[in-house]
């Protein structure tokens, strides 16, 4: 099979085409959409989703789902924010460590409950979604972390860096690249695909499903924790009742658009990045097109359903399969 044919078959090609089409159509309607400024806004808007999407992608590839990431994001952001507020003398990385590690710990709990009791992850994480949100209210005493408690250097990370691209953007793509390396070149990375592809065969093939699954949830939690820091940097505050609420749905939408199959075993970093960019473009395009922001969730929901139907229809075929089989 030639390299080009393989490229065309790839799911990523379909998403790329959708992205290009979307940008083209919006630019035709509203030419000022097609500008460097828009690109900057899109790039700034997505790191939050992108980082968490990498974790969610791995979870979906392993044939699970993590609904608790919004609460984990909130929890980590609050935990880190409290460090910033109550111990302003500590260096910035302590806050990062607290955010990422607390996220990892909560993700670890998800993985533990799912694997030990062999429960459906969707129900378990629906439970921890509520549980972690409750914990973060208790931890924070229902008090917001105010803008003047967020350290200045953290805020600057969302604005600039030595190479003029905001740090959070660099971090997000670095995370994506690291995820790609991990999934493509490590044995445990391949085992995640194997588990999702055929869960009952995995143990017969000597794959240790439980530790790998726990690892996947832990990574998802850690990345949600990192996203919590990005949230604090970008928005300059953390509110227990707002931060991360409904975030899981945005991320799942991005990942599913990115061609990650809910049936496990299928999904790539490139596709997910494209899915996140497409979602980010939609987010940015709405106000430019004069569409009310209230439409955003409805559009996400619609997009998820369409992506599911496409996944069902083409399954493996990529763009060519879509064209060949039409709406079959």
């Amino acid at each position: 099979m030639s390299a080009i044919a393989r490229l065309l078959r790839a799911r990523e090609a379909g998403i790329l085409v959708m992205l290009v089409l979307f940008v083209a159509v919006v630019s035709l309607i509203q030419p000022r959409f097609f500008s460097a400024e828009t690109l900057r806004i899109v790039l700034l808007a997505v790191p939050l989703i992108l980082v968490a999407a990498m974790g969610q992608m791995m979870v979906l590839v392993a044939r699970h789902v993590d609904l608790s990431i919004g609460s984990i994001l909130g929890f980590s952001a609050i935990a880190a924010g409290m460090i910033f507020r109550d111990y302003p003398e500590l260096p910035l990385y302590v806050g990062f460590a607290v955010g990422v590690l607390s996220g990892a710990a909560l993700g670890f709990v998800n993985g533990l409950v799912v694997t030990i009791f062999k429960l459906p992850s969707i129900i378990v994480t629906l439970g921890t979604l509520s549980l972690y949100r409750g914990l973060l209210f208790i931890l924070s005493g229902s008090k917001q972390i105010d803008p003047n408690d967020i350290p200045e250097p953290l805020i600057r990370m969302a604005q600039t860096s030595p190479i003029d691209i905001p740090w959070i953007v660099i971090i997000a793509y670095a995370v994506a690249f690291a995820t790609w390396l991990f999934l493509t070149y490590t044995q445990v990375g391949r085992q995640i695909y194997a588990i999702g592809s055929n869960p009952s065969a995995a143990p017969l093939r000597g794959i240790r499903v439980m530790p790998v699954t726990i690892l996947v949830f832990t990574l998802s939690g850690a990345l949600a924790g990192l996203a919590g820091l990005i949230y604090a940097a970008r928005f300059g505050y953390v509110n227990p009742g707002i931060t991360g609420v409904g975030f899981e749905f945005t991320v799942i939408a991005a990942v599913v658009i990115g061609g990650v199959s809910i049936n496990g075993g299928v999904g790539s970093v490139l596709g997910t990045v494209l899915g996140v960019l497409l979602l980010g473009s939609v987010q940015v395009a709405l106000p430019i097109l004069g569409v009310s922001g209230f439409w955003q969730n409805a559009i996400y929901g619609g997009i998820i359903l369409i992506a599911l139907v496409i996944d069902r229809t083409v399954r493996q075929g990529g763009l060519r399969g879509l064209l060949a089989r039409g709406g079959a």
Partner: protein
Amino acid sequence: MNSIDKPTPSTTTPTIVVREAAAPRPRWQVLLIRPETVTLVLLVVATIVASRLSPFFADLGFILESSTYYIEFAIVALVLTLVIISGEIDLSPAAQMALSACLFGTAFKAGLPMPVAIGVSLLAGLVMGAFNGFLVTVLRLPSIIVTIGTLILFRGLAQVLAGDKSIGGFPSWFVGIDYRMVGIVPVPVVVFVAASVLLGLFLGITIYGRQIYQIGTSEIAAIHAGIRVRRIKMGLFIASGLVSSIAGLMVASRLGSVRYDLASGAELTMVLIVMLGGTYIFGGRGSILGTFLAAWLLVIIATGMTVANIAINAQLTVMGLLLIVSIIMTNAIYARSQR
């Protein structure tokens, strides 16, 4: 349930040549290890503890009055019980409540007479349920993920309809359903009890109820036995949509207004009630009685926490924990009784 997490039958299942039928369990043991029994015990314990802690709980009227918030979700949970027994799940009813209620509000605001506005709302529930059913039974998508998609879609549409404002000003006969009493029992509770009896009978003595259990136990076997699996599941999703719109109207009546975030996050409460009632997350087992008891258990626990001055936000912790503990327990009980 065509869920992404359902343990697929292992390819290594041995062809077991069983020589003798194992002796059946004693009847008392079968009864005792039913999850509903556990729910009942917990309910009794919770009631005793709560009434010791606060004199409020000795007053039945107080419990009934404070139950109206949860009862709306409990009514939906009754239908959700059937959906889960059939092996599917519906996470979208809370969003369906919001959208149908917002449609009702918008229709009323647009000057339509009340009966028409109510009709619009019910029709919307029907259509939303049918839409879920279509995606699950015709396109054969897993309900667990489909209803997450429709959850976002329905609530998003509610947001489009209502923006971030609340719609109110309904006529006074419509408002305050929770203050209308039959004796000392608020009307929503009466509706809940009536619905429990009806659905309990439906599930328990009709052939459709039987077939719901059969589908949930083994969908493939049900198809092979000539049971109209798709039709029944479609019916259940439509019922779920319809009951959601009824519950949405009850909320609208209780609050006197509707907003897009009505019943926000209530999918957790509904699933929690069903799981607390001992319905098996993988389908095939469960009962309306369990859900009925669980609803009261939740009312006692939630009211108890409120009386004990635990902030509503912190109560989320308990709810999440309860959900996880109840699935673990139910699974453990069924694992013991299953061979």
